């Protein structure tokens, strides 16, 4: 893959080179799809939303001024498109309402996770992530996986910087608590 900046491919696309846009799709398809699947919690719907997002971004590429990064712009589009689908389907948000703050030993939790097979471990983490609120999942994914600065995340989800910090703090403790609830019975069964 080329190391040229996104702006190069955006300009090429605007000049009518659709193949240049294919490069941008290839670069961002995984993150766009992941954000969507974590919000709508359905693979088929997420795939459809992600495709629509890239088509929508293509038709509106002229309006992309370059004030923010292309990644921030497209993540924002997928975030709102996925939320729209949830609203339209009137899906019940099945996130867990957890008020207790995790105070347990993280080392024990990490050890317990490491004993599990890779496939099972990933499945448990995914299931636990899906129990968080939509915005919490998006914030955690963008911050820890994409390593996006908090300021850019605040642009994506349209929340203040302080609000993002609070949500991030709460979300990671909530995730640890959910994981503990899921793993504890499993480790007891192993003994």
């Amino acid at each position, binding site marked *: 893959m080329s190391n040229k900046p996104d702006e190069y491919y955006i300009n090429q696309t605007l000049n009518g080179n*659709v193949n240049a*846009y*294919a490069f941008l*799709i*290839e670069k961002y*398809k*995984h*993150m766009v*799809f*992941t954000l969507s*699947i974590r919000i709508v919690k359905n*693979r088929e719907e*997420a*795939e459809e939303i*992600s*495709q629509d997002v*890239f*088509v929508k971004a*293509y*038709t509106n590429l002229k309006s992309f001024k370059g004030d923010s990064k292309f990644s921030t712009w497209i993540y924002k589009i997928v975030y709102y498109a996925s939320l729209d689908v949830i609203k339209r389907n009137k899906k019940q948000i099945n996130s867990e309402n957890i008020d207790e703050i*995790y*105070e347990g030993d*993280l*080392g024990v*939790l*990490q050890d317990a996770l490491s004993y599990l097979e890779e496939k099972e*471990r*990933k499945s448990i*983490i*995914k299931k636990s*992530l899906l129990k968080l609120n939509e915005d919490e999942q998006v914030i*955690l*994914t963008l911050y*820890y*996986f994409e390593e996006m600065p908090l300021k850019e995340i605040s642009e994506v989800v349209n929340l203040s910087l302080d609000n993002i910090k609070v949500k991030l703090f709460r979300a*990671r*403790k909530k*995730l*640890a608590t959910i*994981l503990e609830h899921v793993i504890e019975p499993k480790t007891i069964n192993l003994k």
Partner: protein
Amino acid sequence: MKQDKNIDDFSKYLLKDVGLEKPSSNFVAKVINTINIENSKVSNVVYKPIISKIGWFFIAISFIGLMIVLYFSNTESIIQFSVIDLSFFDKLMAINIFENIKLSKIFSFSFMLFSLLVLVQLHFIKKILQ
């Protein structure tokens, strides 16, 4: 503070470990295909003027020709209309078929207002359709 750092590292480990979801293998091809269809739709709609450029050229030539003929011809009409007796038109005009129809002012005003609203509505419908 140490607990915060630990949970920060732990969250990073979790999110990195779980990685990203993979869309279908032909994802890019599907998107590009949709974009190509959209593009062809846009380029297929080519608006043609009702009167072509050649049409306008002939209209202009005929108009100019007519003007020249009229300018250089005698002041008397070229076509002798006086030969045709048009007096029957006067008889026709004398018959007023609307003589017995009387419309009230209220009806006239409401009819005019209704017509005006139809025209306004047409304008908005045209805007919506566009």
